């Protein structure tokens, strides 16, 4: 009975989403305020219905209701409760439900926090989001319903959640990522609303800026969490694999980053209007494309958990309607947009244009590399794969170019900025970063690495330039406290984000060039020298977990003959699925991670063991965290709140009887 309530709520949400897609748009086109006014209540109702639906599915997992096929396929009596909760989004149907729920959540957020925006505008925005919702809910109800039952013979036990996903990382990674992916739908909806209404001035940019920034921040954290999860759970010890699904999240991220910067130009100077609209459409379209790539089985990937051509055709049709429709509208309307105002060759505008250019080239190269196997296969060229060498060869130089320019942008002024005095602080920045950068590799063991020297120079160049800009502002406002109080929060956010990127680059450069790595055969009593550490295997045991059996090795790590730490990596075999998983032991530190993982048993009680020292690897995720934090700081700007308050004041003013 309970699952039927969830099913019913899903159908209800579908019906509501159709109303949400139709009524406000109809109201706008026929100038009937009554229809426009349905947008907000409908958005709230849709959010409620999907929350109920999601809650019911989670209840099914928590109570082991194996009569629900999705629960039976992805849970087990022995599965711990916190993984039963995250198992809700552990496979195709449930993760779609999460997608739809988050889309509805963003709709609710727009309904609640858009009081400063004219009613017809927020009605159009919610209507566009409703259209997206219709597509997703139809997809779920017709091809991927999570409430399908196995009756009358409900199995006594479930098939268990994919062991790869039995990890705390799964609890947070998909929701964060979806908040980002789906959050971009708000920027998309604002762009569409302004195209529909023909109101293509700078105002839509101001309205959609905070939404874009917060979606970008979620996307940043989501990707970083995924990378961190891959690092410690997949047992390969890498942090980025250029897997198609990773790329599918990176491409919208790059476009969204470009969009954030381009929105700034559109808002402040009214320039790049049609370009910004295109980026807003592209960012969300590429998120949808990512979904298509994962769900349809068009590309091979570790993430592809539902390869079903029928679903693929449905999503492709949906993509054609959403992306094709929005690009057609764009083509019809954006050609008429005028671009008032000019800017000099050297100005903040041109630096931001440069930023957009490089980010777009990056996004297009990653997209091409990801789709290339598909394109070749489609023209009969056979199966090929594009690997990390291609992506690194393209991505690394482009990042270097991007970072070089990032020091100038914040210092430059709008319109015209060719006064050399503005850039004088960069001379010191350049000298310090080059000297330290060149010296850095010689402090490290092993031969001198040019790549490290360049990478560290770039990271320092960006970090110091960011600090210099900050100091300049502090000087301008006369003190740290006043600066923090009076400067635009977006500025503080930018400092965090740029500094975070520098931190991340340092981590990437160090871990890629200076990881010390051994694959060896070890048995109890064997020891191995690794960097400054001696690693000794002292025990092998068999451990019984709640739903798995593990071979567990105990390693003692000595530093200068002192016992530094004891770690216990495992090789687990999950009972229900028989899948074998590696649980690596990682000792994290500020300047290095010590990584120990068990490989294969080699007989005679010996195991293949993988030992690594990974310098500065945690800086990658620390940097990404700073970037995401920067995004969240930006949206606290008083400017966004003030707008609402002013508008509210006006609105209440109108209510006063004349």
């Amino acid at each position: 009975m309970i699952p039927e309530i969830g099913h019913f709520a899903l159908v209800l949400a579908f019906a509501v989403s159709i109303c949400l897609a139709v009524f406000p748009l109809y109201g706008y086109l026929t100038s009937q305020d009554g229809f426009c006014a349905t947008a907000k209540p409908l958005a709230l109702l849709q959010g409620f219905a999907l929350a109920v639906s999601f809650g019911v599915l989670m209840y099914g997992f928590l109570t082991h209701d194996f009569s629900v096929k999705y629960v039976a396929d992805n849970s087990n009596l022995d599965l711990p409760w916190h993984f039963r909760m995250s198992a809700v989004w552990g496979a195709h149907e449930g993760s779609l439900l999460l997608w739809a729920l988050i889309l509805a959540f963003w709709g609710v957020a727009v309904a609640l926090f858009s009081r400063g925006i004219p009613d017809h505008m927020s009605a159009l925005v919610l209507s566009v989001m409703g259209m997206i919702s219709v597509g997703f809910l139809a997809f779920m109800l017709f091809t991927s319903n999570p409430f399908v039952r196995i009756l009358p013979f409900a199995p006594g036990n479930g098939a268990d959640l994919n062991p790869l996903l039995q990890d705390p990382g799964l609890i947070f990674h998909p929701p964060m990522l979806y908040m980002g992916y789906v959050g971009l739908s708000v920027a998309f909806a604002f762009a569409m609303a302004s195209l529909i209404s023909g109101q293509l001035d700078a105002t839509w940019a101001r309205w959609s800026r905070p939404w874009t920034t917060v979606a970008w921040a979620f996307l940043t954290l989501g990707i970083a969490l995924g990378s961190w999860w891959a690092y410690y759970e997949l047992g390969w010890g890498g942090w980025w694999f250029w897997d198609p699904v990773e790329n599918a999240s990176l491409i919208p991220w790059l476009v969204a980053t470009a969009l954030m910067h381009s929105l700034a130009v559109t808002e402040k100077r009214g320039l790049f209007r049609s370009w910004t609209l295109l980026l807003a459409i592209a960012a969300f379209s590429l998120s949808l494309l990512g979904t298509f790539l994962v769900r349809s089985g068009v590309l091979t990937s570790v993430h592809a958990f539902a390869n079903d051509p029928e679903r693929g055709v449905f999503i492709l049709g949906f993509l054609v309607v959403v992306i094709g429709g929005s690009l057609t509208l764009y083509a019809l309307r954006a050609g008429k947009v005028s671009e008032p105002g000019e800017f000099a060759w050297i100005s903040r505008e041109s630096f931001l244009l440069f930023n957009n250019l490089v980010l777009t080239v990056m996004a297009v190269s990653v997209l091409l590399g990801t789709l290339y196997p598909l394109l070749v296969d489609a023209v009969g060229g056979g199966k090929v794969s594009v690997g990390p060498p291609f992506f690194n060869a393209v991505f690394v130089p482009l990042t270097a170019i991007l970072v070089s320019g990032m020091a100038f942008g914040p210092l430059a002024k709008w319109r015209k900025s060719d006064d050399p005095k503005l850039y004088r602080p960069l001379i010191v920045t350049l000298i310090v970063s080059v000297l330290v950068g060149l010296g850095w590799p010689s402090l490290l063991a092993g031969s001198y690495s040019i790549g490290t020297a360049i990478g560290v120079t770039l990271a320092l160049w960006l970090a110091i330039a960011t600090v210099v800009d900050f100091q300049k502002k502090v000087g301008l406002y006369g003190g740290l406290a006043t600066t923090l109080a009076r400067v635009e929060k977006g500025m503080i956010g930018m400092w965090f984000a740029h500094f975070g990127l520098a931190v991340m680059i340092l981590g990437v450069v160090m871990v890629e060039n200076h990881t010390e790595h051994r694959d060896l055969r070890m048995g109890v009593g064997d020891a191995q020298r690794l960097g400054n550490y001696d690693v000794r295997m002292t025990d092998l045991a068999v451990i019984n977990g709640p739903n798995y059996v593990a071979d567990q090795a105990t390693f003692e790590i000595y530093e200068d003959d002192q016992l530094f730490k004891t770690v216990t990596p495992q090789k687990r075999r999950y009972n229900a699925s028989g899948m074998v998983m590696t649980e690596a032991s990682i000792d994290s530190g500020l300047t290095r991670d010590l990584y120990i993982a068990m490989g294969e048993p080699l007989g005679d009680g010996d195991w293949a063991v993988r030992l690594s020292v990974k310098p500065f690897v945690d800086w990658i995720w620390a940097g990404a965290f700073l970037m995401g934090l920067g995004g969240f700081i930006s949206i606290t700007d008083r400017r966004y709140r003030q707008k609402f308050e002013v508008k509210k004041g006006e609105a209440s003013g109108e209510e006063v009887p004349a």
Partner: protein
Amino acid sequence: MNRLMVWLPLGIFAILVGFFFKGLSLDPNEQPSALIGQPVPVFELTDLMTGERLTREQLPRQPFLLNVWASWCITCQVEHPYLTQLSKQMPVVGLNYKDTETAAKNWLAKLGDPYALQIFDPTGRLGLDLGVAGAPETFLVDSNGVIHLRIQGEVNDRVYAKKIQPVLETIQ
């Protein structure tokens, strides 16, 4: 922006859609099974129901389906009604894979036994020879015992119409 340039994104997208549509009909994971065109491997096991010795020679002398199943496999339960229906048209031979005798017999007693023969393979040896990755899997075998098709996962009317029937027509 130029009046014509604004149509460019739509044009690029249209071309991509063409490729994606083509891509949907290509399976990046499809690996031609090494056993296609090969006879069913030699085996010597027992019949689950009778306990009698079973070998390759006792397989049906007409096209049949070899269905790998187990009582612990949930999808097997899902496809069982369809196989039962299918067994009226052509013989379905069961390969009970990595299971226990009692559990398997209980399962058949509860859900019905449409199988012409029931090969009992508790250690999964024949499954290994067949290259079985998990249950359910279904093989289409012709009257000479040669394998023509391998299906991983559930057999239903869609899979039958799309994959089994076209091959079946060529071997009958």
